[in-house]
Protein backbone atom coordinates (compact mmCIF):
# COMPACT_ATOMS: atom_id res chain seq x y z
CA UNK A 1 0.00 0.00 0.00
CA UNK A 2 3.05 2.27 -0.21
CA UNK A 3 2.39 5.37 -2.23
CA UNK A 4 5.55 5.33 -4.32
CA UNK A 5 5.27 8.95 -5.30
CA UNK A 6 5.80 10.09 -1.73
CA UNK A 7 8.85 7.93 -1.02
CA UNK A 8 11.80 10.13 -0.23
CA UNK A 9 15.45 9.24 -0.41
CA UNK A 10 17.65 9.54 2.63
CA UNK A 11 19.46 12.49 1.11
CA UNK A 12 22.50 12.92 -1.10
CA UNK A 13 25.00 12.15 1.65
CA UNK A 14 23.63 8.69 2.40
CA UNK A 15 25.89 5.86 1.25
CA UNK A 16 23.94 3.61 -1.08
CA UNK A 17 24.34 -0.09 -1.52
CA UNK A 18 25.12 -1.54 -4.90
CA UNK A 19 25.07 -5.04 -6.28
CA UNK A 20 22.71 -7.93 -5.72
CA UNK A 21 21.17 -8.91 -2.41
CA UNK A 22 22.65 -12.15 -1.04
CA UNK A 23 20.92 -14.89 0.89
CA UNK A 24 23.02 -13.91 3.91
CA UNK A 25 21.82 -10.31 3.64
CA UNK A 26 18.23 -11.48 3.44
CA UNK A 27 18.72 -13.65 6.53
CA UNK A 28 20.17 -10.69 8.41
CA UNK A 29 17.26 -8.50 7.33
CA UNK A 30 14.75 -11.10 8.47
CA UNK A 31 16.30 -10.99 11.91
CA UNK A 32 16.73 -7.23 12.04
CA UNK A 33 13.37 -6.07 10.77
CA UNK A 34 11.06 -8.95 11.70
CA UNK A 35 12.83 -10.68 14.58
CA UNK A 36 12.96 -13.95 12.63
CA UNK A 37 16.15 -15.85 13.45
CA UNK A 38 17.22 -17.97 10.49
CA UNK A 39 20.60 -19.45 9.61
CA UNK A 40 21.80 -18.20 6.18
CA UNK A 41 22.79 -21.73 5.10
CA UNK A 42 19.37 -23.02 6.10
CA UNK A 43 17.71 -20.19 4.19
CA UNK A 44 19.79 -21.04 1.10
CA UNK A 45 18.98 -24.74 1.39
CA UNK A 46 15.25 -24.04 1.73
CA UNK A 47 15.00 -21.19 -0.76
CA UNK A 48 11.76 -22.55 -2.21
CA UNK A 49 10.07 -22.91 1.18
CA UNK A 50 7.39 -20.27 1.77
CA UNK A 51 8.33 -17.35 4.04
CA UNK A 52 5.44 -18.37 6.32
CA UNK A 53 7.35 -21.50 7.29
CA UNK A 54 10.23 -19.35 8.56
CA UNK A 55 7.79 -17.27 10.62
CA UNK A 56 7.91 -14.22 8.34
CA UNK A 57 4.53 -12.65 7.67
CA UNK A 58 3.51 -10.15 4.98
CA UNK A 59 4.21 -7.08 7.10
CA UNK A 60 7.65 -8.51 7.87
CA UNK A 61 8.41 -8.86 4.16
CA UNK A 62 7.09 -5.36 3.55
CA UNK A 63 9.56 -4.10 6.16
CA UNK A 64 12.41 -5.85 4.32
CA UNK A 65 11.32 -4.27 1.04
CA UNK A 66 11.35 -0.87 2.74
CA UNK A 67 14.81 -1.45 4.18
CA UNK A 68 16.20 -2.52 0.79
CA UNK A 69 14.62 0.48 -0.95
CA UNK A 70 16.33 2.68 1.62
CA UNK A 71 19.70 0.97 1.20
CA UNK A 72 19.63 1.07 -2.57
CA UNK A 73 18.01 4.46 -2.88
CA UNK A 74 15.39 3.23 -5.34
CA UNK A 75 11.93 1.76 -5.45
CA UNK A 76 11.32 -1.94 -5.82
CA UNK A 77 8.37 -3.25 -7.81
CA UNK A 78 5.02 -3.62 -6.04
CA UNK A 79 5.09 -7.38 -6.48
CA UNK A 80 8.31 -7.74 -4.42
CA UNK A 81 6.33 -7.77 -1.19
CA UNK A 82 4.01 -10.43 -2.60
CA UNK A 83 6.76 -13.00 -3.28
CA UNK A 84 6.08 -16.22 -1.43
CA UNK A 85 9.59 -17.71 -1.15
CA UNK A 86 13.15 -16.48 -0.56
CA UNK A 87 14.19 -17.53 -4.08
CA UNK A 88 11.28 -15.72 -5.74
CA UNK A 89 11.95 -12.62 -3.64
CA UNK A 90 15.70 -12.49 -4.34
CA UNK A 91 15.09 -13.10 -8.06
CA UNK A 92 12.56 -10.27 -8.17
CA UNK A 93 14.75 -7.84 -6.22
CA UNK A 94 18.01 -8.67 -7.98
CA UNK A 95 16.46 -8.57 -11.45
CA UNK A 96 15.23 -5.08 -10.66
CA UNK A 97 18.56 -3.94 -9.25
CA UNK A 98 20.40 -5.40 -12.29
CA UNK A 99 18.37 -3.32 -14.73
CA UNK A 100 19.98 -0.14 -13.44
CA UNK A 101 18.34 3.15 -12.56
Amino acid at each position, binding site marked *: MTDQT*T*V*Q*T*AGPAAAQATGPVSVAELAALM*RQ*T*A*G*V*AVDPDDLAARADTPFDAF*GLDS*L*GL*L*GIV*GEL*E*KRHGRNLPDNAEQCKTPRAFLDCVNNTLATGA
Partner: protein
Amino acid sequence: MNAEPEPKPERRAAITGIGVVAPGAIGTEAFWKNTADGVTALGRIDREGCTHLPLRVAGEVHGFDPAEVIEDTYLVQTDRFTHFAMVATVWALEDARLGHADLDSPYSVGVVTAAGSGGGEFGQRELQKLWGSGSRHVGPYQSIAWFYAASTGQISIRGGFKGPCGVVAGDEAGGLDALAHAARTVGRGTDTVLVGAAEAPLAPYSMVCQLGYPELSTADDPRSAYTPFTPGARGFAPAEGGAMLVVESEEAAHRRGAPVRATVAGHAATFTGSGRWDRTREGLAHAIRGALAEADCAPEEIDVVFADALGVVDADRAEAAALVDALGPHGRRVPVTAPKTGIGRAYCAAPVLDVATAVLAMEHHLVPPTPNLTDPCCDLNLITDRPHPTPLRTALVLSRGLMGTNAALVLRTGASASR
Protein backbone atom coordinates in the same frame (compact mmCIF):
# COMPACT_ATOMS: atom_id res chain seq x y z
CA MET B 1 -25.06 5.81 28.86
CA ASN B 2 -26.58 4.26 31.89
CA ALA B 3 -26.23 0.51 31.98
CA GLU B 4 -28.95 -1.44 33.70
CA PRO B 5 -27.91 -4.69 35.34
CA GLU B 6 -27.86 -7.61 32.97
CA PRO B 7 -29.64 -10.86 33.70
CA LYS B 8 -27.56 -13.10 35.87
CA PRO B 9 -25.57 -15.41 33.63
CA GLU B 10 -26.10 -19.08 34.15
CA ARG B 11 -22.44 -19.68 33.66
CA ARG B 12 -20.63 -17.82 36.42
CA ALA B 13 -17.30 -16.25 35.49
CA ALA B 14 -14.48 -17.52 37.68
CA ILE B 15 -11.03 -15.95 38.01
CA THR B 16 -8.47 -18.77 37.98
CA GLY B 17 -5.19 -17.06 37.12
CA ILE B 18 -3.44 -13.71 37.63
CA GLY B 19 -0.38 -12.22 35.88
CA VAL B 20 1.01 -8.86 36.96
CA VAL B 21 3.70 -6.47 35.74
CA ALA B 22 3.59 -3.43 38.02
CA PRO B 23 5.87 -0.65 39.17
CA GLY B 24 8.30 -2.20 41.65
CA ALA B 25 6.90 -5.69 41.12
CA ILE B 26 7.43 -7.89 38.09
CA GLY B 27 5.30 -10.94 38.86
CA THR B 28 2.19 -11.54 40.94
CA GLU B 29 3.98 -12.76 44.06
CA ALA B 30 6.21 -9.68 44.28
CA PHE B 31 3.18 -7.48 43.56
CA TRP B 32 1.16 -8.91 46.43
CA LYS B 33 4.08 -8.69 48.84
CA ASN B 34 4.66 -5.01 48.01
CA THR B 35 0.95 -4.26 48.13
CA ALA B 36 0.37 -5.98 51.46
CA ASP B 37 3.41 -4.23 52.92
CA GLY B 38 2.34 -0.83 51.58
CA VAL B 39 5.60 -0.38 49.69
CA THR B 40 5.83 2.79 47.58
CA ALA B 41 7.09 2.25 44.05
CA LEU B 42 6.43 5.82 42.97
CA GLY B 43 9.60 7.67 42.08
CA ARG B 44 11.12 10.54 40.18
CA ILE B 45 10.86 9.86 36.47
CA ASP B 46 14.32 9.12 35.12
CA ARG B 47 13.53 7.90 31.60
CA GLU B 48 15.53 9.48 28.78
CA GLY B 49 13.70 12.37 27.14
CA CYS B 50 11.28 12.79 30.04
CA THR B 51 13.21 14.48 32.79
CA HIS B 52 12.65 18.04 31.56
CA LEU B 53 8.85 17.72 31.58
CA PRO B 54 6.71 19.19 34.38
CA LEU B 55 5.44 15.71 35.29
CA ARG B 56 7.97 14.54 37.87
CA VAL B 57 6.60 11.52 39.72
CA ALA B 58 5.19 8.31 38.32
CA GLY B 59 5.15 4.57 38.82
CA GLU B 60 7.73 3.22 36.37
CA VAL B 61 8.39 -0.46 35.71
CA HIS B 62 12.14 -0.94 35.97
CA GLY B 63 14.13 -4.01 34.96
CA PHE B 64 11.45 -5.52 32.73
CA ASP B 65 12.87 -7.76 29.98
CA PRO B 66 10.08 -9.15 27.81
CA ALA B 67 12.60 -11.16 25.75
CA GLU B 68 12.83 -13.63 28.64
CA VAL B 69 9.24 -14.64 27.89
CA ILE B 70 8.20 -13.44 24.41
CA GLU B 71 9.79 -14.23 21.03
CA ASP B 72 11.59 -11.53 19.01
CA THR B 73 9.09 -11.89 16.16
CA TYR B 74 6.43 -10.42 18.47
CA LEU B 75 8.66 -7.95 20.27
CA VAL B 76 9.81 -6.16 17.09
CA GLN B 77 6.24 -5.44 16.04
CA THR B 78 4.78 -4.35 19.38
CA ASP B 79 4.95 -1.47 21.84
CA ARG B 80 5.88 -1.67 25.49
CA PHE B 81 2.19 -1.72 26.52
CA THR B 82 1.73 -4.91 24.52
CA HIS B 83 4.96 -6.38 25.93
CA PHE B 84 3.48 -5.93 29.41
CA ALA B 85 0.18 -7.52 28.35
CA MET B 86 1.79 -10.48 26.60
CA VAL B 87 4.08 -11.29 29.52
CA ALA B 88 1.26 -10.87 32.05
CA THR B 89 -0.87 -13.23 29.95
CA VAL B 90 1.81 -15.93 29.93
CA TRP B 91 2.06 -15.65 33.70
CA ALA B 92 -1.70 -15.65 34.19
CA LEU B 93 -2.01 -18.86 32.15
CA GLU B 94 0.82 -20.44 34.17
CA ASP B 95 -0.86 -19.31 37.38
CA ALA B 96 -4.12 -20.91 36.23
CA ARG B 97 -2.19 -24.00 35.12
CA LEU B 98 -4.04 -23.73 31.84
CA GLY B 99 -2.16 -25.17 28.88
CA HIS B 100 -3.16 -25.91 25.33
CA ALA B 101 -3.78 -29.54 26.29
CA ASP B 102 -6.64 -28.35 28.53
CA LEU B 103 -8.47 -26.63 25.69
CA ASP B 104 -11.23 -28.33 23.75
CA SER B 105 -10.74 -26.06 20.79
CA PRO B 106 -8.94 -22.80 19.95
CA TYR B 107 -12.41 -21.25 19.70
CA SER B 108 -13.00 -21.88 23.40
CA VAL B 109 -10.59 -19.08 24.40
CA GLY B 110 -11.20 -15.37 23.78
CA VAL B 111 -9.17 -12.26 24.61
CA VAL B 112 -10.43 -8.90 25.90
CA THR B 113 -8.20 -5.99 26.84
CA ALA B 114 -8.82 -2.37 27.71
CA ALA B 115 -6.53 0.41 26.55
CA GLY B 116 -6.51 4.14 27.09
CA SER B 117 -3.01 5.15 26.11
CA GLY B 118 -1.95 2.96 23.18
CA GLY B 119 1.57 2.43 21.89
CA GLY B 120 3.09 5.85 22.43
CA GLU B 121 6.73 4.80 22.59
CA PHE B 122 6.62 2.83 19.32
CA GLY B 123 4.55 5.53 17.65
CA GLN B 124 6.91 8.29 18.70
CA ARG B 125 9.94 6.40 17.38
CA GLU B 126 8.36 5.88 13.97
CA LEU B 127 6.98 9.41 13.71
CA GLN B 128 10.42 10.77 14.51
CA LYS B 129 11.79 8.68 11.62
CA LEU B 130 9.05 10.05 9.37
CA TRP B 131 9.80 13.69 10.09
CA GLY B 132 13.54 13.26 10.64
CA SER B 133 14.49 10.98 7.75
CA GLY B 134 11.45 10.49 5.53
CA SER B 135 8.66 8.04 4.96
CA ARG B 136 11.06 5.40 3.60
CA HIS B 137 12.37 5.06 7.14
CA VAL B 138 9.04 4.21 8.76
CA GLY B 139 8.58 0.49 9.34
CA PRO B 140 5.34 -1.30 8.48
CA TYR B 141 4.67 -2.35 12.08
CA GLN B 142 3.75 1.24 12.87
CA SER B 143 0.43 0.34 11.25
CA ILE B 144 -0.41 -2.10 14.04
CA ALA B 145 1.78 -1.39 17.07
CA TRP B 146 0.24 1.76 18.45
CA PHE B 147 -3.41 0.78 18.07
CA TYR B 148 -5.44 0.29 21.22
CA ALA B 149 -6.32 -3.14 19.84
CA ALA B 150 -2.71 -4.33 19.52
CA SER B 151 -2.53 -6.27 22.78
CA THR B 152 -5.72 -8.24 22.22
CA GLY B 153 -4.62 -9.08 18.67
CA GLN B 154 -1.10 -10.17 19.53
CA ILE B 155 -2.18 -12.25 22.54
CA SER B 156 -4.74 -13.95 20.33
CA ILE B 157 -2.26 -14.58 17.49
CA ARG B 158 0.59 -15.79 19.68
CA GLY B 159 -1.58 -18.19 21.66
CA GLY B 160 -3.75 -19.25 18.73
CA PHE B 161 -6.82 -18.18 20.71
CA LYS B 162 -9.67 -17.88 18.23
CA GLY B 163 -12.63 -17.32 20.54
CA PRO B 164 -14.48 -13.99 20.83
CA CYS B 165 -12.02 -11.13 21.12
CA GLY B 166 -12.61 -7.51 21.99
CA VAL B 167 -11.03 -4.23 22.99
CA VAL B 168 -12.41 -1.58 25.29
CA ALA B 169 -10.85 1.71 24.20
CA GLY B 170 -11.76 3.75 27.21
CA ASP B 171 -10.69 5.75 30.19
CA GLU B 172 -9.69 4.18 33.51
CA ALA B 173 -13.09 2.60 34.11
CA GLY B 174 -12.64 0.65 30.87
CA GLY B 175 -10.55 -1.85 32.83
CA LEU B 176 -13.62 -2.89 34.81
CA ASP B 177 -15.80 -2.81 31.70
CA ALA B 178 -13.40 -5.29 30.07
CA LEU B 179 -13.83 -7.65 33.04
CA ALA B 180 -17.58 -7.37 32.71
CA HIS B 181 -17.38 -8.00 28.98
CA ALA B 182 -15.28 -11.10 29.63
CA ALA B 183 -17.79 -12.35 32.20
CA ARG B 184 -20.62 -11.86 29.72
CA THR B 185 -18.62 -13.68 27.02
CA VAL B 186 -18.21 -16.61 29.39
CA GLY B 187 -21.92 -16.39 30.21
CA ARG B 188 -22.75 -16.68 26.53
CA GLY B 189 -20.81 -19.91 26.14
CA THR B 190 -17.07 -19.31 25.71
CA ASP B 191 -15.17 -21.39 28.27
CA THR B 192 -12.22 -19.07 28.83
CA VAL B 193 -11.43 -15.39 28.32
CA LEU B 194 -8.01 -13.81 28.91
CA VAL B 195 -8.83 -10.34 30.13
CA GLY B 196 -7.13 -7.29 31.54
CA ALA B 197 -5.18 -4.20 30.63
CA ALA B 198 -1.65 -2.91 30.48
CA GLU B 199 -0.51 0.61 29.70
CA ALA B 200 2.83 2.26 28.95
CA PRO B 201 2.09 6.00 29.09
CA LEU B 202 5.52 7.18 30.23
CA ALA B 203 7.29 7.74 26.91
CA PRO B 204 7.95 11.44 26.19
CA TYR B 205 5.15 11.75 23.62
CA SER B 206 2.63 10.03 25.89
CA MET B 207 3.66 12.14 28.84
CA VAL B 208 3.17 15.35 26.88
CA CYS B 209 -0.33 14.15 25.98
CA GLN B 210 -1.17 13.96 29.68
CA LEU B 211 0.14 17.39 30.65
CA GLY B 212 -3.20 18.95 29.78
CA TYR B 213 -5.07 16.96 32.42
CA PRO B 214 -5.80 19.29 35.33
CA GLU B 215 -6.03 16.19 37.56
CA LEU B 216 -2.37 15.28 36.94
CA SER B 217 -0.08 15.79 39.92
CA THR B 218 3.01 17.79 39.07
CA ALA B 219 4.44 17.54 42.58
CA ASP B 220 8.03 16.33 42.75
CA ASP B 221 8.11 14.36 46.00
CA PRO B 222 7.10 10.71 45.52
CA ARG B 223 5.79 10.61 49.12
CA SER B 224 3.33 13.46 48.65
CA ALA B 225 2.58 13.55 44.92
CA TYR B 226 -0.50 11.30 45.12
CA THR B 227 -2.41 11.50 48.39
CA PRO B 228 -6.17 11.10 47.82
CA PHE B 229 -8.63 11.76 50.64
CA THR B 230 -6.28 14.29 52.23
CA PRO B 231 -6.62 18.10 52.38
CA GLY B 232 -3.31 18.38 50.53
CA ALA B 233 -4.40 16.17 47.61
CA ARG B 234 -2.85 17.56 44.45
CA GLY B 235 -3.88 15.10 41.78
CA PHE B 236 -2.75 11.68 40.67
CA ALA B 237 0.58 10.19 39.65
CA PRO B 238 0.40 8.09 36.47
CA ALA B 239 1.86 4.61 36.15
CA GLU B 240 2.71 1.95 33.64
CA GLY B 241 2.23 -1.82 33.78
CA GLY B 242 -0.90 -3.87 34.21
CA ALA B 243 -2.48 -7.22 34.85
CA MET B 244 -4.08 -10.02 32.88
CA LEU B 245 -6.52 -12.52 34.35
CA VAL B 246 -7.77 -15.90 33.28
CA VAL B 247 -11.57 -15.91 33.51
CA GLU B 248 -13.32 -19.24 32.95
CA SER B 249 -16.79 -20.54 33.36
CA GLU B 250 -16.97 -22.05 36.82
CA GLU B 251 -18.01 -25.29 35.19
CA ALA B 252 -14.92 -25.38 32.94
CA ALA B 253 -12.68 -24.67 35.92
CA HIS B 254 -14.28 -27.50 37.92
CA ARG B 255 -13.98 -29.84 34.93
CA ARG B 256 -10.20 -29.46 34.84
CA GLY B 257 -9.84 -29.27 38.62
CA ALA B 258 -8.69 -25.65 38.73
CA PRO B 259 -9.36 -23.71 41.95
CA VAL B 260 -11.92 -20.91 41.56
CA ARG B 261 -10.21 -17.97 43.20
CA ALA B 262 -13.04 -15.50 42.83
CA THR B 263 -16.12 -14.91 40.74
CA VAL B 264 -17.07 -11.77 38.83
CA ALA B 265 -20.46 -11.27 40.44
CA GLY B 266 -21.71 -7.89 39.26
CA HIS B 267 -20.84 -4.79 37.29
CA ALA B 268 -22.41 -1.54 36.18
CA ALA B 269 -21.13 1.62 34.56
CA THR B 270 -22.43 5.16 34.20
CA PHE B 271 -21.26 8.30 32.41
CA THR B 272 -21.27 11.74 33.95
CA GLY B 273 -18.93 13.71 31.68
CA SER B 274 -15.31 14.73 31.96
CA GLY B 275 -14.06 17.15 34.56
CA ARG B 276 -17.34 17.27 36.48
CA TRP B 277 -16.17 15.45 39.58
CA ASP B 278 -19.10 16.62 41.73
CA ARG B 279 -21.42 14.72 39.39
CA THR B 280 -19.56 11.46 39.91
CA ARG B 281 -21.20 11.21 43.34
CA GLU B 282 -24.47 10.34 41.66
CA GLY B 283 -22.88 8.42 38.78
CA LEU B 284 -20.67 6.27 40.97
CA ALA B 285 -23.45 5.58 43.48
CA HIS B 286 -25.69 4.44 40.62
CA ALA B 287 -22.95 2.17 39.29
CA ILE B 288 -22.45 0.66 42.75
CA ARG B 289 -26.19 -0.02 43.11
CA GLY B 290 -26.24 -1.63 39.67
CA ALA B 291 -23.28 -3.86 40.43
CA LEU B 292 -24.78 -4.92 43.76
CA ALA B 293 -28.11 -5.69 42.09
CA GLU B 294 -26.49 -7.85 39.43
CA ALA B 295 -24.49 -9.64 42.12
CA ASP B 296 -27.63 -10.07 44.24
CA CYS B 297 -25.54 -8.58 47.02
CA ALA B 298 -26.72 -6.53 50.01
CA PRO B 299 -24.60 -3.48 50.93
CA GLU B 300 -23.68 -5.09 54.26
CA GLU B 301 -22.12 -8.05 52.44
CA ILE B 302 -19.34 -5.86 51.04
CA ASP B 303 -16.25 -6.62 53.14
CA VAL B 304 -13.77 -4.28 51.47
CA VAL B 305 -13.84 -1.42 48.97
CA PHE B 306 -11.02 -0.65 46.55
CA ALA B 307 -11.53 3.06 45.98
CA ASP B 308 -10.91 4.96 42.77
CA ALA B 309 -9.05 7.55 44.86
CA LEU B 310 -8.29 10.16 42.22
CA GLY B 311 -6.47 12.55 44.51
CA VAL B 312 -8.55 15.60 43.53
CA VAL B 313 -10.39 17.05 46.52
CA ASP B 314 -13.79 17.38 44.78
CA ALA B 315 -13.48 13.91 43.30
CA ASP B 316 -12.45 12.30 46.58
CA ARG B 317 -15.35 14.00 48.37
CA ALA B 318 -17.78 12.77 45.69
CA GLU B 319 -16.47 9.21 45.97
CA ALA B 320 -16.78 9.15 49.76
CA ALA B 321 -20.33 10.47 49.48
CA ALA B 322 -21.21 7.97 46.77
CA LEU B 323 -20.13 5.10 49.00
CA VAL B 324 -22.44 6.24 51.77
CA ASP B 325 -25.25 7.00 49.29
CA ALA B 326 -25.06 3.49 47.87
CA LEU B 327 -24.10 1.43 50.92
CA GLY B 328 -25.86 3.42 53.64
CA PRO B 329 -24.26 3.48 57.11
CA HIS B 330 -22.18 0.45 56.06
CA GLY B 331 -20.36 2.83 53.72
CA ARG B 332 -18.75 4.53 56.72
CA ARG B 333 -17.79 1.25 58.42
CA VAL B 334 -16.53 -0.97 55.62
CA PRO B 335 -12.73 -1.00 55.20
CA VAL B 336 -11.74 1.16 52.24
CA THR B 337 -8.33 1.03 50.64
CA ALA B 338 -6.48 2.47 47.65
CA PRO B 339 -3.21 0.57 47.21
CA LYS B 340 -2.66 2.43 43.96
CA THR B 341 -1.26 5.37 45.95
CA GLY B 342 1.89 3.24 46.17
CA ILE B 343 2.25 2.63 42.44
CA GLY B 344 0.22 5.33 40.67
CA ARG B 345 -2.67 5.08 38.26
CA ALA B 346 -1.99 3.02 35.16
CA TYR B 347 -5.08 4.29 33.34
CA CYS B 348 -7.19 1.31 32.16
CA ALA B 349 -4.85 -1.04 33.98
CA ALA B 350 -5.39 0.68 37.35
CA PRO B 351 -8.71 -1.00 38.22
CA VAL B 352 -7.50 -4.33 36.78
CA LEU B 353 -4.54 -4.21 39.18
CA ASP B 354 -7.11 -3.47 41.90
CA VAL B 355 -9.11 -6.53 40.86
CA ALA B 356 -5.94 -8.65 41.05
CA THR B 357 -5.26 -7.19 44.50
CA ALA B 358 -8.85 -7.81 45.59
CA VAL B 359 -8.62 -11.50 44.67
CA LEU B 360 -5.31 -11.85 46.53
CA ALA B 361 -6.67 -9.88 49.49
CA MET B 362 -9.67 -12.22 49.77
CA GLU B 363 -7.34 -15.23 49.62
CA HIS B 364 -5.18 -13.83 52.40
CA HIS B 365 -8.03 -12.23 54.36
CA LEU B 366 -5.96 -9.08 54.49
CA VAL B 367 -6.89 -5.55 53.44
CA PRO B 368 -3.71 -3.96 52.06
CA PRO B 369 -3.01 -0.40 53.15
CA THR B 370 -3.13 2.91 51.27
CA PRO B 371 0.51 4.08 51.27
CA ASN B 372 1.60 7.67 51.83
CA LEU B 373 -1.61 8.84 53.54
CA THR B 374 -0.79 10.56 56.79
CA ASP B 375 -3.80 12.76 57.37
CA PRO B 376 -6.93 11.41 55.64
CA CYS B 377 -9.85 13.77 56.11
CA CYS B 378 -12.81 11.78 54.77
CA ASP B 379 -15.59 10.09 56.68
CA LEU B 380 -14.52 6.60 55.62
CA ASN B 381 -12.83 3.68 57.33
CA LEU B 382 -9.71 4.15 55.26
CA ILE B 383 -6.95 1.59 55.87
CA THR B 384 -3.73 3.59 55.81
CA ASP B 385 -0.66 2.66 57.84
CA ARG B 386 -0.67 -1.10 57.93
CA PRO B 387 -2.61 -4.04 56.47
CA HIS B 388 -5.86 -4.91 58.19
CA PRO B 389 -6.55 -8.62 58.75
CA THR B 390 -10.26 -9.46 58.51
CA PRO B 391 -12.39 -12.14 56.85
CA LEU B 392 -13.03 -11.13 53.25
CA ARG B 393 -15.66 -12.78 51.06
CA THR B 394 -16.91 -9.96 48.88
CA ALA B 395 -15.03 -7.00 47.42
CA LEU B 396 -16.20 -3.88 45.63
CA VAL B 397 -13.80 -2.29 43.12
CA LEU B 398 -14.46 1.27 41.92
CA SER B 399 -13.04 3.20 39.03
CA ARG B 400 -13.64 6.55 37.41
CA GLY B 401 -12.09 7.80 34.22
CA LEU B 402 -10.85 11.25 33.28
CA MET B 403 -13.28 11.23 30.35
CA GLY B 404 -16.30 10.74 32.61
CA THR B 405 -17.01 7.04 33.02
CA ASN B 406 -17.80 5.55 36.43
CA ALA B 407 -17.74 1.80 37.03
CA ALA B 408 -18.21 -0.62 39.90
CA LEU B 409 -17.41 -4.34 40.03
CA VAL B 410 -18.37 -6.86 42.72
CA LEU B 411 -16.12 -9.88 43.28
CA ARG B 412 -16.95 -12.83 45.46
CA THR B 413 -14.43 -15.23 46.87
CA GLY B 414 -14.16 -18.62 45.17
CA ALA B 415 -15.73 -21.71 46.65
CA SER B 416 -12.29 -23.32 46.91
CA ALA B 417 -10.25 -22.98 50.06
CA SER B 418 -7.71 -20.16 50.03
CA ARG B 419 -4.22 -21.15 49.06
